């Protein structure tokens, strides 16, 4: 098990003006599970493939353990990659698929057998060792792909959206299995996905990437509570955060942030007010998560909004309520027992701590 580090890693494909990866810095500690998340095409798979050695480095360094591995071919990097499409050898049995790497390294037969049966037991594949991939289900194939990686005992596991080809139920199941695997093996894992739920549930830390740039790295809680910018704030959490453009006003004793129609306003406490005043911005974007809006009455600091109910989605314990506040639309999650009907006008609020403010141009988090 090793650490992996990316230092100012940059990738530009020939003929493209844009950078697929723009100076990404990331340190994955020994034994850590880090997720690379982002929308399609953001560069996360490119980064993973560069760590594996399947794509060349334009500039920057990749370190595995203490070595810079930029010029090493994949076979010399001691990493294992689980492909999105599993990439199993179709003409080999499950056993041969998993033992191929060891056979190439001339590991003695009995050691190979031990390693493979071990991995097969962990992954519940013992009954399938003689089958060929074509005879397996999607979930089983995925486990063989994992098994192939485990057997190699690599310095780091790289996984490229391994769950995206599975159906929803299997996905949830396998998510837990991978997490269990991680704890059992204590392995360094770098996991690429576009699904923030997977990232949140499995990772020690998450790296959010957008258009080749690293937006933020942090633990799931950090990313949830303190997103560094509007992109991360909107990417993490489901349903996603509500964003409303607001205007900053000075009132005696503090700062008031108001929406265009005046239906929403936020009163900031002294610390936050001072901070906002010091930045000198006059336009901000308010960010508030649906789960933080409720029908409690609050006075003083925090968010107040007057809205009418458009749609109510009943989800058993909660209701997702789609609201209109002036010209803005928001989603709030409230307790299902709250008496609401479509067309109701009501006042909702959120506490000061739950409010995020973002610079309207750069999207950087101010609060």
């Amino acid at each position, binding site marked *: 098990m090793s650490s992996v580090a990316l230092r100012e890693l940059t990738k530009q494909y020939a003929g493209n003006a844009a950078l697929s990866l723009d100076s990404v810095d990331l340190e994955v500690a020994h034994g850590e599970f880090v997720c690379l998340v982002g929308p399609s095409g953001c560069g996360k798979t490119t980064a993973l493939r560069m760590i594996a*050695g399947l794509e060349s480095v334009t500039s920057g360094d990749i370190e595995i353990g203490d070595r810079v591995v930029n010029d090493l071919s994949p*076979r010399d990097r001691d990493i294992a990659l689980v*492909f999105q499409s599993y990439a*199993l050898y*179709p003409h080999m049995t499950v056993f041969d698929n998993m033992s*191929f790497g060891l056979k190439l390294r001339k590991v003695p037969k009995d050691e190979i057998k031990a390693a493979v049966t071990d991995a097969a037991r962990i992954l519940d594949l013992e009954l399938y060792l003689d089958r060929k991939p074509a005879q397996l289900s999607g979930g089983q194939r995925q486990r063989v792909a994992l098994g*192939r990686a485990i057997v190699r005992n690599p310095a780091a596991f790289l996984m490229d959206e391994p769950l995206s080809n599975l159906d929803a139920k299997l996905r949830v199941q396998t998510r837990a299995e991978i997490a269990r695997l991680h704890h059992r093996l204590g392995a360094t894992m770098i996991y690429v996905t576009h699904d923030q739920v997977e990232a949140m549930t499995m990772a020690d830390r998450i790296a959010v990437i957008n258009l080749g740039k690293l937006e933020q790295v942090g633990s799931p809680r950090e990313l949830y509570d303190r997103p560094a910018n509007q992109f991360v704030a909107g990417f993490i959490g489901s349903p996603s955060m509500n964003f409303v453009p607001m205007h900053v006003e000075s009132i005696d004793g503090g700062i008031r942030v108001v929406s265009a129609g005046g239906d929403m306003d936020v009163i900031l406490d002294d610390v936050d007010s001072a901070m906002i005043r010091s930045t000198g911005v006059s336009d901000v974007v308010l960010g508030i998560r649906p789960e933080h809006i409720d029908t409690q009455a609050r006075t003083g600091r925090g968010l107040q909004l007057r809205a009418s109910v458009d749609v109510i989605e009943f989800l058993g314990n909660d209701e997702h309520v789609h609201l209109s506040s002036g010209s803005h639309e928001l989603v709030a999650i409230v307790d299902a027992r709250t008496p609401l009907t479509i067309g109701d006008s009501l006042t909702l609020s959120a506490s000061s701590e739950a409010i995020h403010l973002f610079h309207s141009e750069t999207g950087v988090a101010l609060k």
Partner: protein
Amino acid sequence: MERPSARGADVVTSVVAEGLKVAAPRAPRQHGWWRRNWVSLAFIAPGIIWLLAIVVYPTIATIRFSLYNESATKFVGLHNFASVFSTDTILTAFKNNVVWVLIFPFFVTFIGLMVAVLTERIRWATAFKAIIVMPIVFSTTASALVWRTIFDLDPHVGVVNAIEQTVSDWFSTPGAYPLNSAIGQTAVSLASFNATGATGGTLLSKSAVQPGGTVMMGLTRISSTTLQTLGAKTPVAPQTIAGGIAGLVWNDFSPSQTSNTTTIVSDEHGLPNLRLSLVNSTGSSVASTVTNSSGDFSFSHVAPGSYHVEIQASNFQTSFVGTFWLGSQSITPTSGLNQTAQSLLSVPLIDLAMIISYIWIWAGFAMVLIGAGLAALNREVLEAAEIDGATEWQTLRRVTIPMLAPVLTVVFVTMVINVLKVFDIILNMAPGSSQGPATTLALSIYNDGFTGGIHSGVASAIAVILFLLVVPVMYWNLRKIKGGSP
């Protein structure tokens, strides 16, 4: 009381009416089907009729012909088949087909594979592929003619023999007086006067000579053509040279005085361009020279001592004998065997030459098919192999090729079928003398059935055998292709 006839008429009428009710609806339905489909059926009719007449019926007829005698008048059962397996010419055809099947499909698939794999990495792949594929477009007849020239025995015509000659000359340049190995000539057999055979195919003067002396050596059995080509003149008796050795080598054969083998006669010729060495008493060569057009030579400034003159072996070096690629000499050692065994076991050299040309024609086909299969491979599996630690050779051998197995099989089997029917290339590439030894089944059908009139018995039997060989293979191949294609 009712009138019986009236009641009867009612019954009849009602029965008929019922009958009509049942009958009437059926007729329009049938009529409609025909009307709807007659165009469709008319579309396919020409094709069906054509196929029935020229493919289906003749196949059945051939089977029938194979069971009848040559003029198709008398039923002879399996007699024709028996004679097929006992006729040497046809057994030779079988053998040749076996040779083709054993060698050609493997090599053409192998070359197609290698080329397809390598072509993935170059920029000019399209141009390259066009070059390799092109020969398929030429008729096998034209290709056979081209390769016939290439394999021609004469080094002035055939590239292969020209290259062989260059290589052979580089190793052993032919001498001015090449021995005729076909009749077992050796240097010794040429010795006539004062010459004796020595080690390494050289000729040594019997008499020793000292500086200031002369030597004369005579050879025979030199062809007059050689003498003419070399511009041989009348020999001149050698003059002594102080401190040197002079001498003469001449063709000691006079048509007028055949028994005189010791002195020069006027109608004899000197031997020009002979390379000579002066050999001292210890046997080492101290000088060398070449005879002039009258056969005279001299060594000057010779140290005192006793010497012999040596005619170098290189003078007698046989000239280049080309390889008769288009010939029927067997690669396998079968010269001692009886006729039938030879038919079955000898492998004529021309088979190899033809197979090489056929590979030239068809490798492009293999390359295109395998290239398509290669492009359809899941790249990620190859990447997985690389990550697992495989070098690209290992990846090729243990992952790529097994994954290509279906395509490789289709190519291989298609080529087997192709080769079972091989005809054009033999007819055009084999010279008359090699036609028999190089014949194949398809050629036998043509020769037996169509030369000198039409004979249907044995030729049809061969055709049936060919059919039985080809059909299962093709059927299997078809299923593979249909199973694999989308």
